């Protein structure tokens, strides 16, 4: 039984269907990457899993709960977290306040968890009182990831974590993603430029025009010439 199972999900915006019977699974402590060209439905899939879009058909289950009909604020309580691609921080709040918001539903003392986040992202520890809106793209991405980790989720969804980042910064982010995974958190990543992401993934899915195209281990997908040419930019 996988941690997250998406079975034949059809979803979209209003009458427009973007995903057609998409199925994926993520096991505990796995890193899984979904790749595919622009408009393949990757972000739509993330939003549907996290309850921001209601699937028209199909089933989504997470750690033994059927979550297809649940809203995002219920899903977050089950131990899943989501980092959207854009607008993933509260810009007028400080770094620390962003993390406190991540722990909103915790009524216990979470200062230890904030310290763990500062250990994971030392730069955030030094800038705890800084307003996030004034930080760089890479730092914001770290704030967003740390915020999502505040509830100790079992699974974290990352929508294009390296988009719009300089290559050296993207490397830092991916290295942190591995560190997060080492603490036992399963990670589902959506990426457009996916070589880096696939190289650290246990498995990967290729999505095109809203349908499953391929699925294999990260290594095999990277080695596959056809996929390399079609989806990884040659």
């Amino acid at each position: 039984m996988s941690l997250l199972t998406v079975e034949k999900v059809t979803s979209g915006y209003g009458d427009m269907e973007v995903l057609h019977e998409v199925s994926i699974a993520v096991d505990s402590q796995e890193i899984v990457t979904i790749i595919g060209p622009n408009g393949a439905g990757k972000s739509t899939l993330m939003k549907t899993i996290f309850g921001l879009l209601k699937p028209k058909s199909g089933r989504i289950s997470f750690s033994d709960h059927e979550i297809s009909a649940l809203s995002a604020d219920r899903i977050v309580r089950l131990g899943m977290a989501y980092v959207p691609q854009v607008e993933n921080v509260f810009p007028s709040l400080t770094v620390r306040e962003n993390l406190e918001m991540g722990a909103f539903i915790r009524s216990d003392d979470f200062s230890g968890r904030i310290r763990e986040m500062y250990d994971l992202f030392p730069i955030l520890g030094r800038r705890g009182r800084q307003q996030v809106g004034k930080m760089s793209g890479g730092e914001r991405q770290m704030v967003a990831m740390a915020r999502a980790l505040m509830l100790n989720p079992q699974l974290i969804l990352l929508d294009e974590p390296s988009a719009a980042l300089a290559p050296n910064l993207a490397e830092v982010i991916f290295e942190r993603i591995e560190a997060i995974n080492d603490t036992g958190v399963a990670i589902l990543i959506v990426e457009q430029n996916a070589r880096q992401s696939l190289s650290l993934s246990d498995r990967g899915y290729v999505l095109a025009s809203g349908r499953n195209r391929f699925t294999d281990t990260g290594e095999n997908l990277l080695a596959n010439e056809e996929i390399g040419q079609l989806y990884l930019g040659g």
Partner: protein
Amino acid sequence: MTTLAHIPQLLVYGIISGSIISLGGIGVSLTYSILGFSNFAHGDFMALGAYIALGLFTLFTGLGITNAPFGPLSFGFGFVLAFILAIALTAIAVILIDRLLFRRLRRSGPVILMMSSIGVALGLRNILQFFWSPQPHYYSQAIQPAVSLGVLNIRIKPDELFIIALAVVLVIVVHAFMRYTKMGKAMRAMADNATLAQVTGINTDRVIIWTWVIGAGLAATAGILAGIENKFITPELGWQMLLSIFAGVVLGGIGNPYGAILGGMVIGISEEVSTAFISTGYKPAVAFVIMIIMLLVKPTGLLGRKD
């Protein structure tokens, strides 16, 4: 020179009126940034508060609860009790309106919410007229002499000093709430990005309730203070102030409660000081002109965000 000699006194009137406009503006600003619509019923929330206070005060007087004036002020215990309870009851009434109406329309977008708030405004005003008639009502008919402050010939009534002091205290309390409490931070987070707030697990429904509690509570306070300052209340009281309030909110930067405080103060002072130069009848036009100039020159307002 006689006109200029009046200016310090007009400035004081402006600060009094600006205090009331600012308290109203905080609620408009919070509703705009957190719930995402311009609430045209806010002025009528002020009138509702003023009339609930009147009703309770009349009841308490009938019950024989003392209202012996506190020192130089025009009111005592009975009125203060009515004042405090009116704030609570207005907040409850507004939360009920939200549950019955605004919540159901939340997904329909800002225009529908704004239109429905106009309906709420008309409905509330007519309910007040139905029970209390359109005629003015008085908290107190006693005449309170103004006292000299001893500088620049400025004279001010003790009640007016109370209005300014209460506004200052409430602004500090709201600031501390927004800055340091978990709910206040969640309100700022939701104002930043409501979807992300939901995704983060913030209980957005509770944030909305708190937004109404603060907005409606301050509206009731502003309405009652306007009644104290004007000496009478009518069902039109809040509606008549709404233009000044919106002008203040736009001037300060819509969606920023600190901007609403600053903007409200500037509008209040401008309106009063303008009477030294032009007819009192043009006071609302002054607010309008300032609002339009601000929208043309810097639509984000004095303290508005760049994005």
